[in-house]
């Protein structure tokens, strides 16, 4: 899973702005910024992905991890990633809406 690729996409969104990242850091109705939402989501994906990788490693080295546990860990990480993609898409389209308004 290419976490660094996602991180560069996030920074790309930030640098594409005319104003210095103001809309991204502008609070949404709930009080958190778009940047926060994306950061949190990336964090969750990263942690699930690390869990899965560690689980696979433990299974392969024979140190007691069951096969079904390992597979479930990888499936959870996959779901986190899919969730992240949806969140990212929503954030990007919401951001684009805001940019349109400001024009």
């Amino acid at each position, binding site marked *: 899973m290419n976490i660094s690729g996602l991180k560069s996409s996030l920074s790309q969104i930030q640098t594409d702005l005319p104003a210095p990242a103001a809309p991204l850091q502008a609070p949404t109705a709930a009080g958190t910024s778009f940047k926060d939402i994306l950061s949190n989501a990336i964090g969750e994906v990263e942690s699930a992905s690390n869990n899965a990788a560690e689980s696979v490693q433990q*299974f392969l*080295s*024979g*140190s*007691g*991890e*069951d*096969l*079904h546990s390992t*597979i*479930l860990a990888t*499936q959870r990480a996959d779901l986190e990633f899919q969730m992240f993609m949806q969140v990212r898409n929503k954030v990007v389209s919401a951001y684009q809406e805001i940019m349109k308004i400001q024009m």
Partner: protein
Amino acid sequence: MSLLSALSISASGMSAQRQRTELLVENLANSDTTRTPEGGPYRRKDAVFAADPSVAQFSSLFDSEMGSGTGVRVAQVVTDTRDPEKRYLPGHPDADQDGYVAYPRMNPAEDMVDLLGASRGYQANVSAVSAVKDMIQRSLDLFR
């Protein structure tokens, strides 16, 4: 991983029962053997099983806790030490000066029953392998 260890355990069970079967078959085949390379008539052999903890470890230190499932191995092959059965057959080439021939002390019926037991034991281990393999495949189904 428990299931892979279980496969090793069942494999050891199959191996032990097979060795036992070979000895029992040898007994039956030699029930009338009056002459052996070691001298004297054939002596009945049997296998003694013992639990084997080293089998259960699937290359892991964590699995080696006491009693967390053990395999089995043939610890010893015991040879019957009872006196052979003497039968009066003066014309027999192996007869001693009194005309008695030493025959193996055997109970073929008992060996037949043991053979059936070993066969059933082997089969039970085969069933265990099959059930465990099914569970492993069901684990893989989680990918779908």
